[in-house]
């Protein structure tokens, strides 16, 4: 029931997330795009749960928990970088340049 449209939406969302990560420079925006990708995946899980059973629902909760932890750590890192460099533009942050 509505499986096809749900998967299409989640694919579009995931692609938007990937495109955002690839194209944007602002760390916060990239972070939000990562969240977008996670939620696109969540949507896939939920949609597919009607086929494969409750495991799909359970997995969504795991992803949410991990995403919450990641948000906490990720925002803290971005905050620390901003304090240090007065910028969250990733073009300015290239300490690993060889």
């Amino acid at each position: 029931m509505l499986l096809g449209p749900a998967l299409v939406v989640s694919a579009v969302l995931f692609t938007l997330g990937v495109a955002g990560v690839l194209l944007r420079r602002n760390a916060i925006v990239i972070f939000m795009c990562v969240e977008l990708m996670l939620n696109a995946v969540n949507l896939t899980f939920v949609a597919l749960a009607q086929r494969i059973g409750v495991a799909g629902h359970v997995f969504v909760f795991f992803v949410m928990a991990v995403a919450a932890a990641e948000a906490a750590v990720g925002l803290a890192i971005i905050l620390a970088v901003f304090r240090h460099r007065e910028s969250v533009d990733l073009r300015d942050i290239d300490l690993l340049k060889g």
Partner: protein
Amino acid sequence: MAATAPSLIWLAVVLPLAGFVVNATLAFVRPGARTVVSVVGVGVLVGAFAFSAAACAALAGAPDAAPIVFRYWTWMPVGDLQVDVALRLDHLSAVMLLVVTGVGSLIHVFSVGYMREDPGYARYFAYLNLFVFFMLLLVLGANFPVMFVGWEGVGLCSYLLIGFWFGEKVNADAGKKAFIVNRIGDCGFLVAMFLIFRHTGSLDFAEVFARAPGLLAAGGATVTAITLFLFLGCTGKSAQIPLYTWLPDAMQGPTPVSALIHAATMVTAGVYLVARCGILFALAPASQAVVAMTGAVTALFAATIALKQWDIKRVLAYSTVSQLGYMFVGVGTGAAAAGIFHLTTHAFFKALLFLGSGSVIHAMHHAYHATHAHEDAQDMRNMGGLRHHLPWTAALMWIATLAIAGVPPLAGFFSKDEILTAAFARGAHDPLWYGIWALGLAAALLTAFYMTRLMLYTFHGPNRTGEPQRAHLHEAPWVMTGPLVLLGALTVLGGLINVPPLLHGGAWLHEWLAPVTAGATALLPAGHLSHTIEWVLVLAAVLVAAAGIVGAVVLLKPGALVPARQAVPETGLGRLLWKKWYVDELYDAIIVRPLAWLSRRVLWETIDVRVVDGLGVNGSARVARAAGWLGSRLQTGQVGVYVAVFVVGVLAILTAALR
């Protein structure tokens, strides 16, 4: 006592080594302890001589003529190769033993006076003792490897003593030259040893010489190769063409060293080796011809150079090369006894000549030193008339000069005559030997001439040393003239040990060496000369000697000489001889310089710097750095790039997995 004397022979070898240890220690700890150094340095030699004499007396009294071999311990037990540290006392090594320790003792005593004021006194005696140790090892070794240790050891000591005053570059260079030229010869000795072991399965003298006639085809390529390689070793050590050039330069060392190492003992090691391997050489007539021909040509060639040298020691050096050539004619002919006889008498009169020249140089040096003049104390043009100042030295050196010229009845006459007679006798089988005899005779003429020239310019005519210096010319102290007198006595009487039957003598040395030389003599064609021919040969030798001496007295004008400083350079043939036929320059041009060029330009600047350093070491480092640089270009530090690569990678994997 007599029965145990030979078994104490190891003491004769070890005593000089102990002397070396003590003197070397003193050289470091207390270089000024001259009395102790003198007592130890000379004492060990006299002790070694006493033990040697006792052992030889016992050998002479032994009922059979068998060699006495002492095996001490096994040195190299490798498969079939069993090499013992062993000494062999037989009639040949006994003669060498007495010459080395006897003449060596006299020269050590002389050195006490000659080196008295040298700051390196202890070091000098340490080297000298070490030399005698190695020389005795060379002479007494019972197999080729032990002999080779001695052979290399005397080369080392020669190097150390030539460069004894290493503060001056020319001395250090002379030492290096001697060492390097000798290496070429030693290489030949080594190859010969390998061949001997391969073809006879042993390196022990007794076994090799016993098996050789059975295993090696007479005149075959194998034995010819072995003997020629051995002879290559001899040309290095005994200064024969083409490796003789180091010996005249070796005169940079102290004069007693020239007397001991570069006249009486070490340089005769090659003659001893050929005599020792007489059986091998007897099996290879071609090699014998090479040995004798090389000796004869060297004898004449070196004599021509000696005609025009001004440095008194250089004349004697070329004379030594020339006389060594005679010895090789002797041993090459197969007349080992004649060669060893000349070796012995030459040790007497050449040591006397060198020590005499040492006495002259000593006086000259002191005269120049006392007056603060900077003239050459060894140049004969600065001498003249010295017989008034050094009467003992002059008289004794005249005896030695007459002996080396071959005037009867002095030592050199008998030995030289025996060699020439032996070469002539072999001419009946191959005319080549007549040529060798003729070369020897020509060399005898020149020998008489250049030695008389040396005496005339040094001791006769007006004195050219300089007015203020003349008062300082004195005879050396007794510690130096004493050995000269003893050597003079030996020079006069030395010939008597081997008076030929022609002159109603017993040919004692000939009989004495017979047990050693019998094997080789049996293999050679017997040459017999009638008494008439022998008398003609003797007469020819005496006439030639007289002609040389008289010719020098008539032709040379000591009064017309000017001191070295005012001398004008020679021209024409005289210059050619004075420049030693430009052989050193020739070797420099065809060997030394190409080798130096090859080493510098090709081996060093191309192969080492460009290939090894450039390509190998720096090249690999550069490749690693380039690879690292390329890799580091991937690391942009831009998160976007990483993500892009990551996404592309994931897509690629997914595509591959889903296909």
